[in-house]
């Protein structure tokens, strides 16, 4: 789909672009023209001006939001959003349901072969079509019930687009998926015409429901319609009404009725071979011609024209142009009455000539006509290409191509950037989905089934989904984890953890870093906790630190935090020996960061000053060594530090340690009285 941004004129102003995840910003500048500085457009309230001309011949795909007034000299910023269709509420059913069908198709594999596989694929095709029809219904309902004329226009256009899509899809199903052979081919085409040319339906209903159908002025039109569409029984039924009202034409009626009854039609079962049918048909055709030439119907022009149609007289059929309304109706009628055993490959000749005869140089073919023509010519690639150009959304071509690919009909037509057509279209479609705040989930599955580039596309897109709630982030994470996208897992977890940290939700931040097994972040969080402790003298979020469990081992700092808290707890519970041992281990095993050693030693002070001796001699020596290590390291730095508090602390520690050492040596040296 091409995008024209109305109002943005590169010749008038130099334009600049900025790509966003789902949109493009186009901005007018004065750069390069008289003046020079780039003018920035202030952000004002946006007015949405939907500008899409929806006729089938031109497709315009961006919705342009215009910011700013058009005062001379001011610049405008355009917001061009690709794939506007995904925001249409009523089409969401289409996307969701077709996703289900698509997944079913991918999973079905090639378990079955031959006829049953074909039947399966035809069923899939029918499912897609029924989804399109359901959507048409909804859209039609919406169009009828809305009171806003602009909206109504929009809905009506959508209905006609969907109807055209179904028309094309149906034809592709007949010709490509089912690959109907000569014989059944005509029957399918007749069904197709009957289903889709419905402009005459209201007329038919009107006549049938009137009290005296044969007196209705449109009576013969309806009979003609039935004949043109090969609905012989219904035509005969109506004719019988006419003859009861008008007994003079009894003879003619009987003959015509008989002819119509005997008309040989292809059958779906294998009850007759093609040659049999041809022979029968040839015979019947001659009979009709004889009656015509004998002038049997000369007195009743209506019946005569019907007989002419039966004989396949092109001019007679063409006379009923208004009743057929389209050239493909004409094509099928022609085939019905001149060559019912047409082979698929012969269709193209008839199609071309039918279109030429029908349009007769008065009007030129529309894009829809060209697409159908390409289908009749069995040019699948052409069909897909034309559809891509005309339609504003990749949905149709992506799904149709995928289906055709499953029918093994598309040769791997390698496009110059490496992927084949099916994959290219699926990638485009899915990328469009990703710009939607909730349909992106469907896009994931589509990427999964693009073997070459799907994963790369998914990796790039999934990181750009806005994570407004934790639940959404969890869904994204689950998708990444299932596909072993570790980079993306880490990235998403980091984003969420940072957000949590900024909001002071330390527990959440920790839980995100556990999920990503991100040791560095866990260290960051622990440092935060420790900082809080140093500043406030107590721990925040005790429920978290007390219950860290095995996740404590994620990072050294976290382990230290857990153990340090445990020390405090032991102290609070007055289990001093254990507390002392833990404290010492924290330093000697180097679990504690060097910056914290002073704090730890200060924590040891009250333990040293207790009445009973807690630290053994060994332990006291260890403590002294730690203190020396600490002060030795700081000696150079603190040369001209007149930090009295620090030196006082060190002094006090030395004193306490010495006293403890003295006491413990005495105690340990004393022989216990037994």
């Amino acid at each position, binding site marked *: 789909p091409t995008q024209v941004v109305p109002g943005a004129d590169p010749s008038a102003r130099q334009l600049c672009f900025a790509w966003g995840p789902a949109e493009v910003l186009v901005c007018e500048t004065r750069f390069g023209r008289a003046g020079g500085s780039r003018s920035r457009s202030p952000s004002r309230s946006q007015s949405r001006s939907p500008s899409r001309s929806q006729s089938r011949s031109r497709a315009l795909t961006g919705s342009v939001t215009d910011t700013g007034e058009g005062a001379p000299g001011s610049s405008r910023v355009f917001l061009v959003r690709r794939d506007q269709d995904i925001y249409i509420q009523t089409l969401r059913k289409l996307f969701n349901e077709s996703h289900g069908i698509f997944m079913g198709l991918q999973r079905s594999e090639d378990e079955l072969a031959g006829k049953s596989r074909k039947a399966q694929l035809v069923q899939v095709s029918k499912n897609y079509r029924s989804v399109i029809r359901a959507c048409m219904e909804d859209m039609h309902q919406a169009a009828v019930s809305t009171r806003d004329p602009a909206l109504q226009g929009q809905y009506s256009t959508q209905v006609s687009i969907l109807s055209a899509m179904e028309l094309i899809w149906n034809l592709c199903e007949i010709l490509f998926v089912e690959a109907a052979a000569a014989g059944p081919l005509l029957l399918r085409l007749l069904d197709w015409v009957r289903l889709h040319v419905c402009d005459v339906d209201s007329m038919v209903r009107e006549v049938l429901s009137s009290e005296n159908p044969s007196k209705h002025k449109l009576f013969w039109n309806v009979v003609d319609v039935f004949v043109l569409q090969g609905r012989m029984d219904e035509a005969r039924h109506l004719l019988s009404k006419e003859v009861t009202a008008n007994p003079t034409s009894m003879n003619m009626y009987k003959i015509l009725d008989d002819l119509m009854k005997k008309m040989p039609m292809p059958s779906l079962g294998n009850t007759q071979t093609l040659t049999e049918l041809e022979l029968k048909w040839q015979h019947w055709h001659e009979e009709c011609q004889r009656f015509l030439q004998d002038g049997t119907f000369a007195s009743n022009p209506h019946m005569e024209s019907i007989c002419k149609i039966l004989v396949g007289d092109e001019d007679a059929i063409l006379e009923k142009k208004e009743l057929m309304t389209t050239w493909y109706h004409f094509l099928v009628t022609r085939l019905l009455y001149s060559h019912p055993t047409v082979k698929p490959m012969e269709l193209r000749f008839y199609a071309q000539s039918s279109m030429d005869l029908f349009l007769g140089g008065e009007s030129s073919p529309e894009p829809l006509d060209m697409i159908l023509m390409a289908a009749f010519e069995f040019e699948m690639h052409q069909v897909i290409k034309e559809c891509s150009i005309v339609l504003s959304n990749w949905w149709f071509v992506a799904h149709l191509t995928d289906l055709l690919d499953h029918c093994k009909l598309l040769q791997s037509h390698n496009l110059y950037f490496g992927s084949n057509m099916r994959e290219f279209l699926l990638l485009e479609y899915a990328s469009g989905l990703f710009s939607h705040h909730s349909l992106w989930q469907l896009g994931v599955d589509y990427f999964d089934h693009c073997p070459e580039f799907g994963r790369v596309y998914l990796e790039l897109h999934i990181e750009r989904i806005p994570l407004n709630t934790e639940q959404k982030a*969890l869904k994204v994470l689950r998708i990444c984890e299932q596909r072993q996208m570790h980079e993306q897992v880490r990235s998403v977890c980091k984003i969420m953890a940072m957000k949590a940290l*900024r909001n002071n*939700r330390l*527990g*959440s931040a920790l839980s995100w870093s556990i999920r990503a097994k991100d040791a560095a972040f866990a260290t960051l969080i622990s440092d935060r906790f420790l900082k809080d402790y140093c500043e406030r003298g107590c721990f925040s979020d005790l*429920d978290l630190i007390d219950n860290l*469990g095995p996740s404590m081992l994620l990072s050294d700092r976290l382990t230290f935090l857990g153990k340090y808290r445990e020390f405090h707890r032991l102290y609070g519970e007055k289990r001093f020996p254990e507390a002392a041992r833990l404290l010492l281990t924290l330093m000697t095993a180097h679990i504690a960061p060097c910056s914290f050693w002073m704090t730890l030693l200060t924590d040891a002070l009250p333990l040293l000053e207790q009445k009973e001796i807690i630290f053994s001699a060994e332990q006291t020596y260890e403590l002294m060594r730690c203190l020396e290590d600490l002060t030795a390291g700081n000696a150079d730095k603190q040369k001209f530090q007149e930090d009295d508090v620090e030196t006082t602390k060190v002094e006090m520690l030395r004193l306490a340690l010495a006293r403890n050492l003295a006491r413990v040596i005495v105690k340990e040296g004393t022989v216990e009285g037994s």
Partner: protein
Amino acid sequence: QDNRISLWSADDLGNVGLNGECHGEPHLLCDIQHNGDVMDMQFLDQERIVVASSTGTVTIFRHHQNNQTLSANHRWERAHYHVDQDTSCGGAACTGVVCNNPEIVTVGEDGRINLFRADQKDAVRTIDNADSSTLHAVTFLRTTEILTVNSIGQLKIWDLRQQRNEPSQIFSLAGDRVPLHCVDRHPNQQHIVATGGQDGMLSIWDIRQGTMPVSLLNAHEAEMWEVHFHPSNPDHLFTCSEDGSLWHWDASTNRSEKPSFLHQGGRSTTYLSHNTINQSVVSAWLSNDPTKDRMEITNLIPNQTLSVNSLDVLGPCLVYGTDAEAIYVNRQLFA
């Protein structure tokens, strides 16, 4: 974004097909626009619905049955918020809501617990920073006590009568602190609680004893979003998950009641004794080895694709919604 709260009628008229499926489709009665994602909702009474939003707002909608419309009755803006103004205007998602007319309790990503009364403008009670991580779900334990689960795998009991802002009890799983996403209490036996975790594990807790779950059942392959005991048939439990499945856990022990001639003296008598003591029947959930007691587990979704986000069950009806934007109604659950 166009999010709406919709009220549907799933009629009883509808022909019953061969498989017992009902063919009458649910049809839309009325809907109303909603700001932000709908994170949770619950009926307050026959006419009012409380809705929790991702913007941190809690709204009460009233359904007017005479003209089939919905209107916003009352709104508590900023029920949940972060202090930092950078992130989404300070609003934090409200993740769970539970009602016990006229009281409404909400929890959110900001770790806050709010207690509202339906007719009062301001919150009756707010526990700030009740949790350092996100609270995912809340349910009533008793009229004055609530249960919450959070993203570091803890189940907490809060006593709302007490003024202190501390939980009265904390339970957690051993091992990894897997976030818990949903919680539900047994309708009759108030000490039995079920929770679902991020790894799809279903845990059954007996809150009278210990701080660890009684049983851990490996269920889904992804986050379990909701768990519900059947309100009138509590031997049945339902769970739904991100992996697209919805499981029906059937722990009823009185399925094979017919005494067979071969087991005259043995099994059937054991069953009788079970059934006479009301308590033992329900202890199916608390038994240590659920597999021994023939718990039947069925996946109710034939072709699963996208996540089942939410479910609810009442009487013979089950309703659930998926990420494929479809709602399914099953009106013959126990057929």
